[in-house]
């Protein structure tokens, strides 16, 4: 192998010089095959277990599956999707989390990162450690933990509420509060992660900018608005994109905490897809739901990238 590579290299050495930039990057043409060999394992696995299933699921989405039999239905599954109230409900639930939980979490993370970066704050290592701890906690772990804490009759949260004289809340059994519970769990889990992304950016903003602004008489709020926020823009965009994609694919939290209930109040598209595929074994319809999800994510992704470009 390496002999062949070297032979090739010798051959190429005799050829006229390539443009300077590429020549330096490829090491003067030492090896042509080498890069492909380095990425080969990843590409092969990726093609077999990702690209192939993506294509296959499109084919599946064109079939009606019932038990072991498959019948061609063309776009039938997609038509069914449009008239499926449960799909729209799942879409609405997912959208609600997107417009409520994501902004709340990102604002919280923003405040947290500014505080963690502040010269006024003491015991910084302790805080960074503590706020990041939920990030390493697995989805099932914290889903079960939240489920127990929010337990209606005997959970600690309702006990705390009763201490201050508030009525007990049906956290996981009331459609409204079940949504709130899922959002609380999500916020608990991901705020620290986003805050760390902001923090890394904040530490790159030179102190001199703040000092100069302070000399010019800019108050704390103006400094935040004119220095901190613009400096954070790439990180803000990144977290918005990541959170949007993550939310649209949301599965684990509602699946563990509420199983999508009560009355489908927390059924997300991800949960609906799973139930269709693996509870009712309607693989064709499940694949159609999946492709609808891809379409939605792509649209959101395009909008966000476009907005980012227009701002520049």
């Amino acid at each position, binding site marked *: 192998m*390496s002999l062949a*590579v*070297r032979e090739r290299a010798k051959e190429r050495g005799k050829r006229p010089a390539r443009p300077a930039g590429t020549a*330096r*990057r*490829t*090491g*003067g043409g030492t*090896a*042509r095959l*080498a*890069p492909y060999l*380095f*990425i080969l*394992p*990843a*590409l092969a*696995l*990726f093609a077999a*277990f*990702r690209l192939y*299933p*993506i294509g*296959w*699921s499109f084919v599946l989405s064109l079939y009606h599956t019932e038990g072991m039999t498959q019948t061609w239905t063309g776009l039938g599954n997609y038509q069914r999707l449009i008239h499926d109230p449960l799909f729209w409900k799942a879409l609405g639930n997912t959208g609600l989390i997107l417009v409520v939980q994501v902004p709340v979490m990102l604002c919280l993370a923003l405040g*947290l990162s500014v*505080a963690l970066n502040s010269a*006024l704050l*003491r015991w910084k290592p*302790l*805080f960074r450690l*503590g706020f990041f*701890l939920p990030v*390493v*906690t*697995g989805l*099932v*772990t914290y889903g079960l933990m*939240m*489920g127990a804490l929010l337990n209606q*009759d005997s959970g*600690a949260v309702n*006990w705390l509420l009763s201490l201050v004289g508030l009525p007990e809340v049906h956290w996981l059994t009331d459609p409204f509060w079940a949504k709130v519970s899922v959002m609380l769990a999500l916020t608990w889990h991901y705020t*620290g992660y986003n805050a760390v*992304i902001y923090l*890394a950016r904040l530490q790159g903003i030179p102190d001199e900018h703040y000092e100069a602004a302070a000399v010019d008489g800019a108050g704390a709020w103006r400094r935040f608005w004119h220095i901190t926020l613009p400096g954070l823009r*790439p*990180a803000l965009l*990144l977290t918005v994109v990541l959170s949007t994609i993550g939310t*649209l694919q949301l599965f*684990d939290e509602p699946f*563990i905490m509420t199983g999508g209930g009560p009355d489908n109040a927390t059924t997300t598209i991800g949960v609906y897809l*799973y139930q269709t595929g693996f509870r009712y074994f309607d*693989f064709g319809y*499940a694949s159609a739901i*999946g*492709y609808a*999800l*891809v379409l939605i*994510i792509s649209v959101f992704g395009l909008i966000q990238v476009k907005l980012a470009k227009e701002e520049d």
Partner: protein
Amino acid sequence: MARTGPAFRAGKRGQVLLTGLLLVLLAFTVAPLYWLLIAATHNQHDIFGRPPHLLPGGELGANLAHLQTSVDFGQVVLNSVLMATSYTVLGGIVCTLAGYGFAKYRFRGRGFLFSVLLLALVVPTQLTIVPLFKLMVNLGWLNSYQAVLLPNLALPFGIFLMRQSMRALPDELLQAGRIDGCGELRLFFRVALPTMKPALAALAMFLFLFQWNDFLWPLVALRDPSSYTIPVALAALTGSSDVDYGQLLTGTAVAAVPMAVLFLFLQKHFVSGMLAGAVKQ
């Protein structure tokens, strides 16, 4: 970073206020985890006692024993450890090789191949689950380690992370090696890898964490209780009609504590790793 200027000394009150505020927030963040640890040492009845217990009880052993009767939890933990370890090693190799290839070579199709990998971030995992399941059925791989491991070995996040880190490696160093007649593979092992230790540590932590906590795919691929990983086993327990929270939360704590400890020791690498993958310079 000692700031002793007059402007900073004046902020004593702000200091106390801010630190106090964050301590309250921190309490909300850490309290559930603390409660989980305590709950793991109490029985079902005491877990939901009012007021909640704040100190450990003596039921940890009993809870573990109950857990063992519901599901072969020893086997489940062993499965999780084996899968996460082998995933870390194999995934680490695949991602590091690919990251190096993308970072240090210019080759035909590089841009295209990289954007194909990017595609994986947009296409939801759920979409590929149904065909992957069928694929595993056809291969006869359900309940096997390879069924769980193979689909995610080429983890885009891992490849990005390594590509990002490898870029910091000066081309001149590789160039010098080539002039000395060093082959490409040796160059990778002898020159590139040794400089990558922090990135490798971050990658390893991330991969281990990913596999340890992964839920949806193992839930689908593992149908036989003896092949379950911890998250799948715990989720299966909640499915039964009368859940014993003593054993359930003990199992949950067993899943959480090793990761928390690992994180405490390696947090520096971990956070920098998360950022290397997330933030484009």
